[in-house]
């Protein structure tokens, strides 16, 4: 029912957008004279009127990344709808313009420029892969936009124009390794990952941490994105017999990796080997199949099964809007935080101006986050707890542990470089 209404409004807005497009082809900028209403809430010509504020949603809804990014789009639309139902931001309803990054980094750059320059949006919720973020970053810095980026990522970045609502690498990694050492008595690790910047940087941090603890890394291997033949590395794992397989395999490769692991007789539900991953959320398990990954552990900040009131309300609202068979992973939840964090910062600043929102952002806290309490750090990342989940056959995680304290985000970790 709800979905139907959503479709209808999508059609309407696309019609409206076509009209705007037609005008944009002429040098007449329809937005700017309207937007230039003198008021404290908007002194820089953003697309803000007395009863409406325009934001952008920029994810891939076509191409290879669409599977991963769709959850984020859904979460952002849900948050925007909920905020509007509560009366909007500074008394203005949020209107969104959605653009498709098409799994193509230059397209992301082009569309982000369109959102900032032509549409004058007050904030953009978007991007998923590091490559797409790197592509839009110069655009956001040049035109002074604000991006809310939801994915857990490698760190090594801190832009004044980005709020990182996912975890950076150290938050995810340190707590996970500490836990597996304490609970499982792990002494040796085998590091494994897809071959690009995030797994490599993450494993570099993991290796440094493992060696600091006086333990041993017995192997480190990388495979190209989309790789599907893991037999040779599985043989190496059997030969080296590590206590922990630390896997940062990304995307579709996961399906082959976990199936082949199981076929090779490495049973994750048995006690002799522990698999710890930071890259498999509930979304990926749908592809892998619960029976293939049952018994693996994941270290991240959010699981759909988290038992708290915020999360229950979030999961039921999400299912009501997008259907009962949907699953919600870590990144989807982080994407949901974006509009809320922005709203809080705008209200604290009393203005939509990017500079004022940026100044107001550090210290913003959210007690209603599905993952619990979060707070924005000076470095634009979030303080958040890290949790350990145990994968179950039904595709969900059992949450076994959470850090007592919030983990401090540290995108440039000393001693881990």
């Amino acid at each position, binding site marked *: 029912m709800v979905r139907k209404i959503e479709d209808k409004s999508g059609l309407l807005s696309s019609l409206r957008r076509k009209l705007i497009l037609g005008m944009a082809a002429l040098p007449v900028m329809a937005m700017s004279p309207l937007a230039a209403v003198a008021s404290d809430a908007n002194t820089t010509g953003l697309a803000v009127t007395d009863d409406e504020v325009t934001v952008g949603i920029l994810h891939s*809804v076509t191409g290879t990344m669409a599977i991963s990014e769709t959850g984020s789009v859904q979460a952002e639309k849900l948050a925007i709808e909920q905020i509007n139902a509560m009366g909007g931001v500074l008394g203005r309803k949020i209107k969104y313009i*959605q653009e498709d990054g098409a799994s193509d980094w*230059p397209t992301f750059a082009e569309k982000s420029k369109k959102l900032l*320059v032509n549409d004058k949006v007050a904030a953009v919720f978007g991007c998923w892969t590091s490559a797409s973020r*790197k*592509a839009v970053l*110069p*655009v956001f810095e040049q035109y002074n936009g604000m991006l809310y980026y939801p994915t857990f990522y490698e760190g090594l970045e801190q832009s004044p124009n980005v709020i990182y609502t996912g975890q950076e690498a150290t938050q995810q990694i340190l707590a996970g390794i500490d836990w597996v050492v304490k609970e499982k008595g792990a002494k040796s690790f085998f590091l494994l990952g897809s*071959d690009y910047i995030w797994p*490599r940087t993450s494993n570099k941090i993991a290796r440094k941490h493992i060696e600091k603890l006086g333990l041993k890394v017995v192997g480190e291997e990388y495979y190209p994105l989309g790789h599907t033949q893991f037999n040779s590395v599985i043989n190496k794992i059997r030969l080296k017999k590590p206590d922990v397989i630390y896997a940062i395999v990304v995307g579709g490769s996961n399906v082959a990796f976990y199936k082949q692991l199981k076929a090779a007789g490495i049973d994750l539900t048995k006690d002799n080997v522990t698999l710890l991953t930071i890259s498999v959320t509930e979304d990926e398990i749908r592809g892998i199949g619960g029976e293939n990954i049952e018994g693996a552990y994941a270290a991240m900040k959010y699981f759909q099964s988290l038992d708290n009131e915020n999360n229950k309300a979030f999961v039921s609202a999400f299912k009501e809007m997008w259907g009962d068979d949907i699953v919600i992973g870590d990144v989807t939840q982080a994407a949901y935080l974006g509009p809320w964090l922005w709203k809080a910062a705008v209200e604290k600043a009393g203005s939509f101006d990017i500079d004022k929102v940026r100044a107001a952002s550090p210290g913003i806290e959210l007690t209603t986050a599905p993952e619990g309490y979060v707070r924005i750090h000076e470095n634009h990342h979030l303080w958040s707890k890290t949790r350990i989940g145990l994968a179950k056959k039904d595709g969900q995680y059992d949450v076994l542990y959470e850090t007592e304290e919030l983990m401090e985000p540290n995108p440039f970790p000393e001693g881990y470089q």
Partner: protein
Amino acid sequence: MNFKISSFANRTEIFGFLVLAVLIVVILPLALDIFRLNLIGKYLTYAFVAIGLVLCWGAGGILSLGQGVFFGLGGYCMAMFLKLEASTPEATKIQSTPGIPDFMDWNQLTELPWFWEPFHSFPLTLVAILVVPTVFAYILGVAMFKRRVGGVYFAIITQAIAAILTILIIGQQGYTGGVNGITDLRTLMGWDIRTESAQYTLYFVNAFLLFVVLLVAQYVRKSKLGRLLVAMREKEDRVRFSGYSVANFKIFVFCLGAAFSAIGGAMFTLQVGFMSPSFVGIVPSIEMVIFTAVGGRLSILGAVWGALIINQAKTLLSEAFPELWLLAMGGLFIAVVMAFPNGLAGLYTTYVEPRLPKFLSGNGGKDADDDSDADVPLASKQAAE
């Protein structure tokens, strides 16, 4: 000067050049804001590749599905220069090794690889943009055309090379920036390329280079070489038996197409501000063939229109229908190829030109008549009969 204008271009062609020139140099800059104009500039960089394809494929019958390789090589050469300029020790003091590009530092490199060294110098970079892709095309050309590899086999090999180069770039991320590409490019010899005035300047530089390339391509088409290319496309053996070295002509036109693509790639990097492996691989290479096919693979002007119109449609459709635009694009391609095998240029010559006033139509001389006849490939002539 011992050549006449009429032997260089007939009236229709001159008219076509003028229309395009007025559109690109006058109308678009006046009508569009800088954001849209910058996008047009980006589309026009693909036109360089499409013009090269008209010569190789349309005239010479050599279908290359790997032009993205040369576009990418040109673009990467420019990006390496810009990246080194952006990676001064002061700008990168946060890294463990200051003074090298950021992605090298993330991949634990501690010094600049040797093949990056020449890109400290702008003149050397300009030379590299033209020479690296051309030499690469020459090696490929010699390896294949001397062995009389052609047709489908050539297309498959070029496609494989595009795939190999992509994998190489992604795999060697410490040296190339990997899947992220080379990003965050800021200045060209101290000149900030991200400002509006810089983007206007780059747009006009790009337009100027495009017309230079168009004129070179037109010259090749009208020269003896151009006629030989058409002859080779239609009956390669006859040309060979007449005593011409078929392989050398093919190698030349393939290298020329590569050099055109590389110029486009370098201008792309300057206008878009980064370069990534997504312009090197199979998909962009095939897309560029599609621009050429839609515009009309026999017409160098058609190729420019094809690149412009397809990309504009892509942008507008994806803005209007973020979730359905790919289907619309697919439908458009199928419709054009099914209904007008000679693309938009074919459509123009069949339907528009006959209705134009006499002085604008192409029948200014007998020469032109012969020419347009020679341009229609055998297959479609047979179909027409």
